[in-house]
């Protein structure tokens, strides 16, 4: 079958790995057989044996390489261009950090390596914890959570455990309406009932609302700061006081820490627990959906409840302490996404204190610059100075029957990754733009002009937007069909 002319010299069609290959091929060479071959059937009853692996791919190495090379060519990454996906902090991922994580003395080390042989690794983790505590103004850090949401769960469980130790059984958690979905679902997973707090017309949590909802059944409030509107929660210290007075804890979602480093410490605002997304603020790559790392930083009071093991330092020796009777237990096997931690640690040393502050300043500068320049063209629901990101809407474009989705897809035609759309939920038709500090002014200027062009197109030729994207591998995809008739794996029919 000749491929459809949709293929071009550079972007090619490519069937599924299962639709290729031929019986008998493989793309792997096994080490030499230097022991006698044992047949599984000689030691196991046939009911325990696999009958066949027939549906597995059968390809030579070159086919595998071409397959995944082509697939990659359908993707757009930070290295391809501007990726202003709000709330995701898609900053540049330094190449050197990838090299560091690949060093054999890290990548090839077994987690049960005896501690005396892993002192450098333990030191790296210990020090990283100390540095993150300094940045957030907290007392101690666990590096174990594998992502932000995992950090949230770890944090809430620690709070619950601490409350239980105090003999309290609190069942609720306050969460603002601007919160990320993980905050809500984590509450549920932690078996806490979520009580929503409405943000005010300025986009932030009004302390009065908190005072109103706060009671002895509330274990904690979960605040994101800066919040998902890109706004600094300016009443956080008041809120903390209110919550603390009623015996609750302040959990901070620190996914947006990129705005605050070296500027303010969350711990100083009364925060008791905060998780940090290393895969956002600390430049570790997102990998198309992980791996990430979501350390939690805590105040002293919560220390006994940290997940085990805790890395401890005795003079110059580091060890993994599992013997912490009040701990919430384990949240994962082993000690954390060490491969990711190496990258964050490398980033931190490369930047230094001055550099991290610069990161936050430039992230905020970039976001405000974008916001000011786009203001006349797109509706800005909260017209005030922002932090690391800004949120527009499609309100001005509604009259042309053009939606946020259309604007986003049209950006693809111009060679951009779209912003986050339709989030936060409190903003109808939200377009959430986070430029990050690694974009240059020219890069922002080009994006701004493109956005202005699109605003003009919406007026003059709205179909261009509704039909977008028109120049990538596939055009707009039918998501409804996908959900209505889920096809979640290859089944041999096409």
């Amino acid at each position, binding site marked *: 079958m000749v491929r459809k002319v949709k293929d071009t010299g550079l972007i090619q069609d*490519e069937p*599924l790995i*299962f639709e290729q290959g031929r019986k008998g091929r493989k793309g792997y060479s*096994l080490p030499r057989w230097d022991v006698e071959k044992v047949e*599984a059937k000689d030691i*196991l009853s046939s009911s*325990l044996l*696999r009958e066949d*692996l027939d549906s*597995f791919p*059968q390809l030579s190495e070159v086919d595998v390489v071409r397959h*995944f*090379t082509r697939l990659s060519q359908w*993707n*757009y990454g*930070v290295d*391809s261009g501007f990726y202003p996906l709000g709330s995701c902090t898609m900053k*540049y991922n330094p190449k050197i950090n990838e*090299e560091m994580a*690949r060093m*054999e003395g*890290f990548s090839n*080390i*077994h987690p049960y390596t*005896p501690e005396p*042989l892993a002192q*450098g*690794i333990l030191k790296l983790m210990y020090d990283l914890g100390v540095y993150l505590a300094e940045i957030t103004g907290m007392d101690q850090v666990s590096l174990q959570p594998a*992502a932000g949401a*995992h950090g949230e769960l770890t944090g809430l469980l620690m709070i619950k455990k601490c409350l239980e130790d105090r003999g309290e059984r609190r069942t609720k958690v306050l969460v603002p309406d601007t919160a990320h979905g993980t905050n809500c*679902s*984590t509450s549920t*997973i932690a*078996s806490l009932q*979520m009580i929503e707090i409405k943000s005010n017309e300025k986009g932030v949590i009004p302390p009065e609302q908190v005072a109103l909802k706060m009671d002895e059944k509330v274990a904690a409030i979960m605040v994101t700061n800066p919040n998902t509107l890109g706004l*600094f929660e300016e009443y956080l210290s008041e809120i903390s006081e209110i919550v603390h007075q009623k015996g609750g804890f302040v959990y901070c979602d620190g996914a947006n820490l990129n705005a605050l480093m070296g500027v303010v410490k969350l711990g100083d605002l009364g925060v008791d627990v905060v998780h940090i997304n290393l895969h956002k603020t600390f430049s570790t790559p997102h990998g198309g*959906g992980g*791996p990430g790392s*979501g350390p939690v930083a805590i105040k002293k009071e919560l220390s006994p409840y940290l997940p085990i093991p805790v890395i401890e330092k005795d003079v110059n020796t580091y060890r993994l302490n599992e013997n912490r009777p009040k701990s919430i*237990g384990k*949240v*994962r*096997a082993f000690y*954390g996404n060490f*491969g990711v931690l190496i990258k964050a640690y490398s980033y*931190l*040393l*490369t930047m230094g204190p*001055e550099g*991290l502050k610069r990161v936050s*300043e430039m992230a905020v500068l970039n976001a*405000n610059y974008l916001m000011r320049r786009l203001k006349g063209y797109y509706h800005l629901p909260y017209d005030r*100075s922002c932090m690391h990101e800004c949120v527009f809407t499609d309100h001005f474009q509604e009259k042309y029957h053009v939606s946020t989705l259309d604007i986003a897809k049209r950006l693809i035609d111009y060679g951009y990754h779209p912003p986050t759309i339709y989030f936060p939920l409190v903003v109808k038709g939200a377009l959430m733009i986070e430029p990050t500090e690694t974009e240059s*002014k020219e890069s922002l200027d080009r994006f701004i002009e493109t956005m202005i062009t699109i605003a003009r197109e919406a007026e003059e030729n709205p179909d261009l937007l509704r039909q977008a994207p028109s120049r*990538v*591998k596939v055009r707009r*995809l039918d998501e409804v069909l*996908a959900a209505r008739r889920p096809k979640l794996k*290859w089944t041999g029919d*096409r």
Partner: protein
Amino acid sequence: MEYFCRFIPHTEEDIQEMLKAIGVERLEDLFEVISENYRLSNPLNLPGPISEPELIGHLRSLQSPLYTCFLGGGAYHHFIPSVIPHLVARSEFYTTYTPYQPEISQGTLQAIFEYQTLMCQLTGMEVSNASMYDGASSLAEAVLMAYRITKKKKVLLSEAVHPEYRKVIQTYIDPYQQQIIMIPYEKEGGRTDREILFDRLNGDVSAVVVQSPNFFGIIEDLPKIVEKVHLTGSLLIVGFSEAIAYGILAPPGSLGADIVAGEGQSLGIPLSYGGPYLGIFSTRERFVRNMPGRLVGETIDLEGRRGFVLTLATREQHIRRERATSNICTNEGLCALMATIFLSCLGKEGLKELAQMNLSKAEYAKKVVSQIRGCKLNFNAPTFNEFVLEVERDPERILDKLREEKILGGLSLRRFYPELSRHLLITVTEMNKREEIDRWAEILAKSLA
């Protein structure tokens, strides 16, 4: 001197122009909303900045030495074909976010679709998600899911499940006040004790959790368990930590498991001192709406061409918020890609042969130790690539001796099973050359003599 960092492009001139456009004078003005009281006046107390060559020098000095490795227990030393690091180092893969915008993420999406298919094939199940954090948390989420489905209060958990996985399950179910009932292993065979299991099994049990190969490397006799479990309306959850075993073992799905959840590190993912790894999670189609994690589905575009999208998101936190099936958001996408490439390279023949080689090497090691005085195999049931060895001396001393020869000779089981205080878990993979096994045995023999 002007501050400069190679990752931040702003020159002084840029900054001035931008401030002007914004309409403020100084950078600090942008932070006015933060009360002066809290704004830091001193720099953070942190090291750095250091240059790239200095960074390399520093990190080099932190590395661990590379020893011959007989460690396993949930993390395995397998060969990683060079095409994997080569391909995942393509920035179009590793510098992208979760594929929310399908039109410019088809590469990631098709790869996950392939991953889901491969995981279904590997585990013998009907649907797989796009990954979980690791084997332990995946198994814990399986227990939560069984609870959502059955609403029953008890979980029967085999003691032969990886001890760390068991701890994680405990942590996850703690808020639900579910009750965990431990099912011991047979002292002779090393399998989960079926008699006790069946004894505890009743209508209150949401799930039975076993692992195969279990923590002792022993292959559980799933066919003998599954029927009884289903009789009480409970679900059978099968965990695993060594995915390569399924190159020769019947996949748990084909034996009737309801959820299969485990660790995929063996599929081309570096050891990296314990992470990032890959949580595999697969189940029956009828449970799909109760499943945690992301899913990729096939669909068509405006012109009828095949394409892939994230789907069934109504289970997920970003749509369903507090009613989601899980709070997972970022998962282990790149590790799932590694596993996909790994299985594509190995293919049918390779996976089978690799599994057989692991089996054969471990059997060889067993044969060698069987001739050494002062130690013996502790269990008699068949194993895959690891086994428990009972030694007559202090196992820590023996391990020290081996370490002096640059060998990580096994895992002492005392920390996990007090009753196995003179026992070592020995893991042998295709990476252990026969000479290495012989050398290990020789030192072992000496230290037991």
